[in-house]
């Protein structure tokens, strides 16, 4: 049963993980928050954010390139020593932990508000994380393979959704094109660039991928396509609902699925989309639980990271239950994103400098 646990994954499976894990953001609270700061230009923010994140990513990759086969934790331990390595890994771990807790709570809120209103929050949360843990337990290769199996179905469902809404789309609603102003949009993109922070975290998985080339192409492709996907879907939300109505809608994706129908007979198409959405949110959080256990184990230099998955799921569950209501989740998410932007944006430069010092020291003994 566990034969595949340490199996390496190929480029296309690796890409599809990110297509799912990052692309998922089009369906959660991210969209509404971005419209609040970007107004009618909110849909551009994902693209600009990724551009900012790509700079940090490029710097980090220049370090990783010199150490083939090593992931981020191995590299920071090599150049930062035991203390430096642990600190950086723990920092990343805490950023990822809080982010997972807040996002997963956001998802449970969506399920609670839009579908199961009378079910208690903790029960829904427990079931979501339980399922995610079950998938994470199968190992990284399993998550990757499920993603690869499902990716075409998911993208197909998205295309179906957009083509179904085509009648209601009026692209003129994207104007005024600069939204809240060029500077404001750029500032907001920079502030929110941590929504692609996974691109930094993903470098921990270098040893799990077949080749470094597959990793590089896979992660870049996954992130670029996802950010375009988020931008297009956000443009569709705007073209359907119009600004300022869009910021009044709590969950635009779910609202969009509620507005679609397949002909006159199948008028409640949201049940079709919600099924897809639930399946991919399980994969999404499975990826996160795996990542958390992986990072934490490396920070403390443990070998058995898989045993940490259950405590991680429990930790996410406990932290996630802390915010009082949906609006608090939003504000926690906002502040978390701006702090982690700092972390994800600066860390690669710190690592690069450490690597530079390390190389200097080791160049002339």
């Amino acid at each position, binding site marked *: 049963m566990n034969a595949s646990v340490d199996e390496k994954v190929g480029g296309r499976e690796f890409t599809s993980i990110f297509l799912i894990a990052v692309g998922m953001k089009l369906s959660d609270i991210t969209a509404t928050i971005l419209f609040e700061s970007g107004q009618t230009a909110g849909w551009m923010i994902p693209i600009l954010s990724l551009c900012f994140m790509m700079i940090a990513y490029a710097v980090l990759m220049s370090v990783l390139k010199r150490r083939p086969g090593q992931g981020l934790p191995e590299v920071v331990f090599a150049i930062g020593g035991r203390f430096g390595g642990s600190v950086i890994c723990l920092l990343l771990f805490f950023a990822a932990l809080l982010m997972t807790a807040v996002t997963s709570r956001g998802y449970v809120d969506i399920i609670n508000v839009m579908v199961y209103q009378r079910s208690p929050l903790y029960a829904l949360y427990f079931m979501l994380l339980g399922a995610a843990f079950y998938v994470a337990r199968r190992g990284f290769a399993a998550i990757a393979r499920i993603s690869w199996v499902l990716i075409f179905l998911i993208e197909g469902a998205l295309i179906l959704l957009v083509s179904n809404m085509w009648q209601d789309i009026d692209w003129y609603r994207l104007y*005024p094109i600069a939204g809240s102003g060029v500077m404001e949009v750029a500032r907001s993109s920079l502030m929110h660039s941590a929504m692609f922070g996974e691109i930094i975290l993903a470098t921990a998985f270098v040893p799990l991928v077949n080749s470094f080339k597959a990793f590089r192409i896979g992660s870049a492709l996954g992130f670029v396509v996802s950010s375009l996907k988020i931008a297009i879907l956000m443009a569709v939300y705007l073209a359907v609902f*119009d600004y300022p109505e869009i910021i009044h809608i709590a969950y635009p994706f779910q609202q969009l699925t509620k507005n679609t129908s397949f002909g006159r007979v199948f008028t409640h198409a949201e049940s079709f989309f919600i099924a897809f959405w639930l399946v991919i949110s399980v994969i999404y959080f499975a990826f996160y639980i795996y990542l958390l256990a992986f990072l934490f184990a490396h920070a403390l230099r443990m070998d058995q990271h898989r045993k940490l998955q259950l405590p991680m799921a429990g930790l996410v569950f406990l932290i996630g239950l802390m915010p009082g209501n949906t609006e608090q989740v939003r504000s926690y998410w906002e502040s978390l994103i701006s702090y982690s932007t700092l972390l994800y944006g600066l860390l690669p430069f710190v690592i690069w400098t450490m690597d530079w010092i390390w190389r200097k020291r080791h160049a002339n003994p």
Partner: protein
Amino acid sequence: MRILKCAVLLPLLLLTGCWDQVELEEQAFVVVIGLDKGPGHTVEITFQIANPQIGSSDIGTAEGEPPSDTIRFTSSDILSAKELANTVVTRTINFAHLKTMIVHEELARSPLFPHIAGAAIRDPEMRREVTMIVSRERAYEFITKNRPRLETRPHKYYELMQQRWQETGFVPFSTLNQYLQQQVVDSMFLAIYATADSTKHRVSRQEDDYIAGEVPKTSGDPVQMMGAAVFRGGRMIGSLTGQQMRWAQMLRRKSSIDAFITSYTDPLDDKAMVSVRLFRNGGTKIRLNLRKETPDIHVTLPLRVQVLSFTSLQPYATDTKKQQILVKHLKEEIEKEVLDVIHLSQKKFGGDLFEWELVARKQFMTVSAFQKYGWSEHFKKANVNVHVELRIENFGKQRTPYIESGQKAG
């Protein structure tokens, strides 16, 4: 280990009976909701609940039951009335199949209405695609008087009516989604205007120059839907006749109607009428010049015409000179009607009925710049000129009229 896993997973199956379980047999599906103004800050809410057994193979067990039941409550908002309804109704009230919302004109005009509608949409069962109809009399009367003969089931009635609206264009295709959208922008929202009281009817030579209640109809279902209720900032401020409504739709960039049949006086015979079917020949083009304090708006409305009938029996089809007269006449008439609607929008309603706000937005870089400009203030003052591009496509399946051929023979 495996047994342990089964022990964890199997009880999950039992959870299906908890919390959000829904028993199909115990649901009461509200298909129409009616809103009236109640005493104080309350609303009177009417639910028309469909009887799913009517029109299905299960009708045998429901003999003698009506196709729907109507109940009315006074409550502070729609959602609290939902539970209150269970003091009477045996089944759980469900809005999942709610298609139509009927609002009494008095409530629609009151400042309370944006609050009622805005509050109702929070319920996930309440869909944004609900059709909104403004009735001239109380919504309760409207619902109880509406007994369509050809459709027993109420949801079918509104579903089919919706298709017809899109064909005729007498009423706008109005949903709660549009209402909520246009409540917060400078454009005005058009809702279906209807009545179940047809005693006020009058006769006009043009078949679309009526508002609800005026259609000269003497038998059949009392309900008629004609014209539009105009909303601004979420409140009703006036009404449009069917004709004005059609042009308002045609002047929008994206309209729910593409073709309709209408009639004009005959240029060669005052007593006669020409009936034509008008098609939108491509999109309406709107050019704005916003640099000046009084903006210029140029509207180009491309139309295709099928001449259906002319009671003057003039040989329009074969006589090109007379055709030119007809084309010129139709152009002038249409331009006059269109300009009338635009002036009505500018003067009477003081705002933009045609969603030209979206076109104006294109000329601004930022949202704040556009908001500072104040589109509806400038629109009121704008010089609008309308150019109709008209082409007669065909004259129906008869070429020459009978009188002319008869004269030739004699």
